[in-house]
């Protein structure tokens, strides 16, 4: 099972059930709350909101400006209510990286649930102090002349990266671009790869 599937002993499960039974009796945990949260996040195919916002920004200069300066309005265009997002733009001069060193803050409404590695001590400890080395280990070489800006989510503002649009995507529309955009690129640990040639 490995480290991602810790052999959680029955005690933890029993403690969960104990607390669950109490919260149900107190009327705090609704009968369908667990199924609804599973349905919400398992049917949410990853960072779809974030990917759509980025694809639209790549194809629409007005929307791009709105996303970078008034993300609340830009997300409202996608039917999402969220007032705490800051979108930071990658370029040839700047690479942005998002972390939460104190806990695991992450923009759930646009990126879904965070992956385990984002919440892990190796990422949280190193992203602020040696991001270039960390990114290289994760497979992303950032040129030395490109500044790395690390956004440590210490308050309730949440961050998402607007990646650089890859080569070979001229003429592609929003719907064609969306599948290219990965969650990791929206966190800043990857770039969006150029599409495979047909």
């Amino acid at each position, binding site marked *: 099972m490995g480290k*991602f599937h810790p052999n959680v002993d029955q005690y933890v499960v029993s403690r969960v059930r104990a607390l669950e039974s109490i919260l149900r009796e107190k009327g705090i945990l*609704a009968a369908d709350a667990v199924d609804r949260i599973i349905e919400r996040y398992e049917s949410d195919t990853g960072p779809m909101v974030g990917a759509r916002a980025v694809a639209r920004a790549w194809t629409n200069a007005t929307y791009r400006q709105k996303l970078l300066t008034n993300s609340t309005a830009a997300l409202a265009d996608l039917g999402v209510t969220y007032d705490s997002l800051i979108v930071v733009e990658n370029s040839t001069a700047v690479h942005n990286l998002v972390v939460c*060193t104190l806990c695991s803050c992450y923009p759930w409404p646009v990126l879904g649930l965070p992956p385990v590695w984002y919440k892990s001590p190796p990422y949280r400890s190193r992203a602020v102090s040696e991001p270039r080395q960390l990114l290289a280990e994760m497979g992303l070489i950032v040129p030395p002349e490109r500044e790395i800006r690390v956004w440590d989510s210490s308050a309730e503002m949440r961050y998402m990266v607007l990646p650089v649009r890859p080569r070979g995507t001229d003429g592609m529309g929003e719907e064609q671009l969306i599948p290219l955009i990965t969650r990791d690129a929206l966190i800043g640990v990857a770039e969006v790869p150029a599409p495979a040639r047909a």
Partner: protein
Amino acid sequence: MDGVHDLGGMHGFGPVVREQNEPTFHARWEAIVAAMMRSARMHRVFNIDEFRHAIERMPPEEYLTATYYERWLAAVSRLAVEKGLTTEQELERRAAAGGTGDASPSASSGPSPSVPGAGAVSDQSAITVAATSFRPATGTPRFQVGDPVVTIETHTKGHTRLPRYARGKHGVVHARHGFHVFPDSSAHGRGENPQPLYSVRFESDELWGSSGELSQAVYLDLWEGYLQPDRA
């Protein structure tokens, strides 16, 4: 508090390991914990700052060995006890009995009159919990964009969102984010005490000295109470 949760800049944790095709939840109990946390917040059993501080109060060796949802479980359990919903003895009694309570989940009799707001939360909001930390301005922010600032040197035993690696450090105000609930008081039942929040840029060599990487900066979102004018 100077806890083990404050990981920025620590050494020794090794490489980042990424799981391929990671599932949303690795087991149903994780989803139950997620649902309990969010439902309890919606019912205002605790606020986000109390929740974070409860995680921080875990013994360091437990914090580092626990998985994410185990930390959530520890925090919700602790707060359920501290807020008077149950006792540690009752949790242990039920856990020893396999986790089932006196009433089966399906026999839940609805809202308890002792819990304010119980049953009054819509299903949708119980999932999304979009409680904003923005508050109306109650004064004029002390700093402008571009102002040089220095962070306070604090070692409070209470909750704070000023990480160790950024204390007593010089930076520049990059942006202002309005007024927000102040976690250092909100986590301790001392009210929201909203303060201006700033994005502050710190250069790598200011934070990490000669060990810092070249051409790198960290941006932190910091409340006004964490900042002093940098008159140097």
